[in-house]
């Protein structure tokens, strides 16, 4: 019964979405206020209905209602409760429902917090947002309905893919979707602005918090996925340049560019058309990612629903929305005249450089991702584009960004001087060179990657710290410290996010350059030495979990005779899904992780054992979290709270741009 109500609520929400797509748009065009007024309550109703529908599906999973096809295929009565809940989005249909829930949540937020938007703009934004919703409602109802029943309910389910039964992965999709779908808000704002034919500083100020929120969720989501791959897949890789990883990374790169260019729109009334284009592109890449994951056109390790019919549907959505928005852009972009003037050396130009590097980097990832498809279709060559290509083609962009970031962030608006901006940065240069030489001296005969990572990381982190320090003005140190605490939160957010970027760059190159590996057969009780650590295989036993059987080893790691890690690497087997997984034993450390994996028993006795020493591993995700935290702090800045600044900005811009 609850299931049917959920199904019904979903259909009802579809109807509401159609109304919300049409009525406010017409109202805004004709200037009918009561028609525009439909948008706000409709957005709220949509969200409540989809929320109910989602709750109904969750209820079916929690109570293990195997008369529902989706529950039967993706759940099992013996599964722990956490994974019964996360099983709701651990499959194609359920994850599309989550996608819709988030889409309508963003729409509802625009209705709740967008009260001070100009009336027509808000109506148009909500209408476009709802149009995206209509497409996805149709998609879920016609091709991937989660509420289908089975005629004869089986006694038990087929269990969720064991790899997904993991706390890290349970919350990875919601964060990723909050990011992907959040970019729909920037898209709606961009399209609404094109229809209005008007982009001004106030528009930039409204768009930025939505983009920032989407960006920070996307950052957390990607970091979580990468962290999960690190501890779950059994050899400690953290990024594979897999098509589906790239699908989440491309929108992230474009969203990062969009964040920065929106600042220029807001503060300097320049780069308007470009910012609108980026907003469209960011969502286009989100849709492309959905297409890649769900159509299976690219062989990927992630794809979980390879159904050509669904693929074609998503491709149509992609073509209609992106094609439509681009056509509109082509027709209207010339109207979006930028009024701000800036010199070739200025903060604006720095941000243009940032945008160029990020956008081209995203395009490089794009070309590499689809190249196997292109090569096969056009040239008849079956080939692969793997990590070696991406490392070679993409890394230079990160190096350039890292080099330019501290100086660009210090340049003055409108007209700056590189010499003036670079002068306060000398301590960062000294620090970076010193640490780089130290790293070079400590390592013998290895690649230059590690020291270069140290150099760039120290330069970026040092630059972020100095940027903050110079903002505190001049005078006695106590004074400056006091002023530092009173700086706008956006300044702190910027410094933290930039520092996080530096830390991640350093950690990725450090880990890649300096990790050590050992593979051997060990008898129980053996002690062996790996890179200055002594590892002991103490015992191996079989244990039984709630829905799996496990071979669990106890392994100890010593340094100079004292115990530093006592871990339990496992090899699990899930009988229902007939699938094994590895659980690495990781001794976390600040400077290095000790990463232990238990393998198979050997014919001559003993066990295959792998040991990895992973320097600075946790810094990768630490840096990413710092970036997200910087975004969060920046988001809490009162200048960004739309209510505080918007009214003021609006009056100022209408006065200074009489032509519009």
């Amino acid at each position, binding site marked *: 019964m609850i299931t049917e109500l959920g199904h019904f609520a979903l259909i009802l929400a579809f109807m509401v979405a159609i109304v919300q797509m049409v009525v406010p748009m017409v109202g805004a065009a004709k200037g009918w206020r009561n028609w525009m007024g439909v948008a706000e309550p409709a957005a709220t109703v949509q969200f409540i209905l989809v929320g109910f529908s989602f709750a109904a599906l969750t209820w079916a999973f929690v109570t293990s209602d195997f008369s529902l096809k989706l529950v039967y295929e993706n759940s099992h009565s013996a599964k722990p409760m956490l994974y019964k809940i996360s099983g709701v989005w651990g499959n194609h249909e359920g994850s599309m429902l989550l996608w819709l829930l988030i889409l309508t949540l963003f729409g509802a937020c625009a209705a709740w917090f967008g009260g001070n938007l100009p009336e027509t703009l808000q109506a148009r934004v909500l209408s476009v947002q709802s149009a995206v919703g209509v497409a996805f409602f149709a998609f879920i109802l016609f091709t991937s309905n989660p509420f289908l029943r089975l005629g004869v309910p089986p006694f038990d389910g087929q269990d969720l*893919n064991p*790899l997904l039964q993991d706390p890290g992965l349970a919350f990875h999709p919601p964060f990723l979707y909050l990011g992907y779908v959040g970019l729909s808000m920037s898209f709606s704002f961009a399209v609404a602005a094109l229809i209005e034919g008007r982009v001004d500083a106030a528009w930039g100020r409204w768009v930025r918090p939505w983009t920032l929120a989407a960006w920070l969720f996307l950052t957390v989501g990607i970091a979580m*996925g990468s962290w999960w*791959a690190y501890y*779950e*897949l*059994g*050899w400690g*890789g953290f990024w*594979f340049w*897999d*098509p589906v*990883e790239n699908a989440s990374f491309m929108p992230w790169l474009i969203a990062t560019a969009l964040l920065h260019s929106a600042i220029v729109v807001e503060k300097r009334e*320049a780069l308007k058309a470009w910012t609108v284009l980026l907003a469209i592109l960011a969502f286009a890449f989100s849709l492309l990612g959905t297409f890649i994951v769900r159509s299976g056109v690219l062989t*990927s*390790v992630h794809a979980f629903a390879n159904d050509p019919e669904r693929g074609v549907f998503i491709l149509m959505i992609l073509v209609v929305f992106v094609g439509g928005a681009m056509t509109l852009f082509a027709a209207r972009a010339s109207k979006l005249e*930028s*009024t*701000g*003037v*800036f*010199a070739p050396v200025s903060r*604006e130009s720095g941000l*243009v*450089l940032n*945008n*160029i590097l990020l956008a*081209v980097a995203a395009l*490089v990832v794009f*070309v*590499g991702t689809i*190249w196997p498809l292109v*090569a096969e279709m056009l*040239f008849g*060559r*079956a*080939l*692969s*584009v*793997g*990590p070696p*290509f991406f490392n070679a*083609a*993409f890394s*230079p*962009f990160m190096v350039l960004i890292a080099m330019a970031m501290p100086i660009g962030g210090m340049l003055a608006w409108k007209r700056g001087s590189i010499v003036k901006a670079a002068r306060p940065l000398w301590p960062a240069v000294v620090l970076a060179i010193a640490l780089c030489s130290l790293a070079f001296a400590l390592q013998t005969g290895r690649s230059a990657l590690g020291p270069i990572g140290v150099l760039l990381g120290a330069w970026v982190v040092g630059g972020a710290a100095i940027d903050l320090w110079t903002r505190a003005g001049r005078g006695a140190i106590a004074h400056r410290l006091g002023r530092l605490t009173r700086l706008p939160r956006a300044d702190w957010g910027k410094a933290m996010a930039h520092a996080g970027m530096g830390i991640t760059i350093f950690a990725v190159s450090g880990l890649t350059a300096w990790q050590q590996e050992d*593979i051997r057969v060990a008898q129980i009780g053996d002690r062996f030495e790996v890179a200055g650590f002594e590892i002991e295989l103490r015992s191996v036993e079989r244990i039984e979990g709630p829905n799996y059987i496990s071979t669990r080893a106890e392994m100890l790691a010593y340094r100079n005779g004292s115990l530093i890690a006592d871990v339990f690497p496992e090899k699990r087997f899930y009988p229902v899904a*007939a*699938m*094994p*997984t*590895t659980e690495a034993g990781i001794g976390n450390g600040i400077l290095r992780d000790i990463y232990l*994996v238990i*393998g*198979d028993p050997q014919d001559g006795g003993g066990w*295959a054992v*792998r040991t990895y020493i992973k320097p600075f591993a946790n810094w990768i995700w630490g840096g990413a979290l710092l970036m997200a935290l910087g975004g969060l702090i920046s988001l809490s800045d009162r200048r960004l709270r739309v209510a505080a600044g918007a009214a003021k900005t609006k009056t100022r811009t209408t*006065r200074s741009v*009489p*032509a519009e």
Partner: protein
Amino acid sequence: MIRLALIMLLWAAPVWAVQPDEILDDPALEERARELSQGLRCPVCRNESIDESNADLSRDLRILLRERLVAGDTDEAAVQFIVDRYGEYVLLRPDATGANRILWASGPAMLILALLIGFLVVRGRARATPVKDLNDDEQKRLDEILRS
């Protein structure tokens, strides 16, 4: 990242990546073998190098690669030996021949193009005349219009 899952479905009794018994006695040769096998794709997996893969075929390829190296092949010859038998699909780093030149050139080409466009835009911005605020007379006139 469901790569393992899919492989596991195909091979019920998996072996893990590089096995202890595969490792060559000569560490220099073994390091070369590891390096090369990270650039070769497992032909039956979803997106893994033979170095990471648990498939039986990957194990065979790892052993084959080591045999070639022990037999005195250069790196290129050993890789070519495998490419000749399994096609260029196994190369994770696509070679820069034929149409692949487009792939390799695309990054630098797009960067140069973007920098050029960016430069023109920035120069255009610098030369544009700023839109001035209304002067006092105009502002007074505007206020009058608005008041009426």
